[in-house]
């Protein structure tokens, strides 16, 4: 478990989502990365019922990450996060009265996983109700656990295959004091994915993205 950074890659001009993803794969393979299977991150939304009327109901997000297949994370946006066993999904079914599943809001990100030296790169397509919304790239630098230390290093690496669309330091790291040890349960990663999903969800309203 190292420092992870999730960012969104804009779709290339005049190309489809799939073509852009293929372009990225090619660039990675040119760099010398080796494909190591696939990954999947998904997110389900639950409305909290029984709240005080007038207040918007809080949204509970239940996420899974193939990197930690036996775990399930439940988090409120900007709020506390719970790391639970995979059976948590079943528990949510039992808690139907308190949390309602917002079907149709399920977001998934699937793609291939590459390994280059000590980096893990995951290029995925974000789909919401089977329509591709965007491209996500997750870069993990495994040996380091302090985000502030290796940020420049990761930025240089991302520049080498993403070109100009390199993100800033993710907000999860900015919010924490400098030099904090990233815990080994991928909470930070999943939080970043959630931010990305929400951003892509909001983009739906002006019209669907390029197909």
């Amino acid at each position, binding site marked *: *478990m*190292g420092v992870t950074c999730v960012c969104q890659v804009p779709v290339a001009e005049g190309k489809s989502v799939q073509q852009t993803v293929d372009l990225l794969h090619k660039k990675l393979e040119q760099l*010398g990365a080796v494909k190591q299977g696939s990954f999947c991150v998904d997110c389900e939304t639950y409305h909290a019922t029984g709240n005080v009327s007038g207040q918007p109901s809080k949204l509970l997000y239940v996420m899974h990450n193939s990197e930690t297949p036996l775990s399930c994370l439940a988090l409120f946006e900007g709020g506390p996060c719970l790391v639970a066993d995979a059976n948590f999904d079943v528990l949510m079914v039992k808690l139907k009265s308190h949390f309602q599943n917002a079907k149709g809001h399920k977001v998934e990100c699937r793609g291939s996983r590459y390994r*280059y*030296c*000590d*980096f893990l790169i995951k290029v995925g397509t974000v789909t919401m109700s089977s329509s591709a919304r965007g491209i996500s790239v997750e870069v993990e*630098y*495994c*040996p*380091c*656990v*302090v985000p502030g*230390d*290796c940020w*420049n*290093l990761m930025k*240089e*690496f991302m520049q*080498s295959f993403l070109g100009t669309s390199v993100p800033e330091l993710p907000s999860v790291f900015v919010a924490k004091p400098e*030099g904090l*040890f990233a815990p*080994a349960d991928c909470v930070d990663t999943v939080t970043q994915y959630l931010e990305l999903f929400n951003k892509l969800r909001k983009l739906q309203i002006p019209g669907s993205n390029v197909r």
Partner: protein
Amino acid sequence: MADVVTVGVNLDAFSHAISGIQALRSSVSRVFESLKDGMKNRETLEGREKQFITEFQDNLQAVNRDLNELERLSGLVGRPSESHPLHNSGLLSLDPVQDKTPLYSQLLQAYKWSNKLQYHAGLASSLLNQQSLKRSANQMGASAKRRPKVQPSTLVLPPQYVDDVISRIGRMFPDMTIELFRPNGTSAVLLVTLGKVLKAIVVMRSLFIDRTVVRGFNENVYNEDGKLDIWTKSQYQVFQKVTDHATTALLHYQLPQMPDVVVRSFMTWLRSYIKLFQSSCQRCGRFLQDGLPPTWRDFRTLEAFHDTCRM
């Protein structure tokens, strides 16, 4: 050809001696000619005999004179230098066919080369002897029989002394913690935790550093028994490289007589890795080379270089 034999020879007298030889030869041949010619024609027999005898005597006296002259001149010529550079083999120079058998010149070159080689080897050995390269504290050059049966003192240090030295060094550096274990007998095994960057396991032999393994901060240092795992390599390439460099470092810092200085230098060097992921290479300015950050730290200046960029 002539460059060897000229020392000590008087060239002038030499040429005079050569003409003296020619004169002697001509007077001797005159003697034999007059004998061959026999008696010349004269009126009386006695006159002929007398003239023949006079002529003969003159010729013989000329020979005698020339011989004396030659002996005098040969005394002046002097001896060629006794100190041939190659003694008898210098005589090879006297009858050469230079193109086909350049024996003499090749011989001279071979001798000059071997003399130079000997000189340089002497210089090198005196320089190398100053810097002892042996990691043990044995006296150099002692044969197995003459080596004292007692082990040298720096190899048998009381464990308490080792503990003290290590704890003193640990206190020197605030961002580095050193824990000391003794899992196998009296050899100390140190677990050095450097900030949140790495953990290094250093196996010692009294106060000499024997081996080291460097792993990431989030890697497991204990094996299933709960003991320190001193054999498994790191799963990350960057730390495998750092382990190699650390092994080079422990071979570089050597002072058999003062092992605590060595340990301190090694720890100072290791401490420069606190900025392993933050530093860029001093030579190329980039952070990554083949996916690795600058893993080499110069032994004197502690500057960061990529493994391929180091000079």
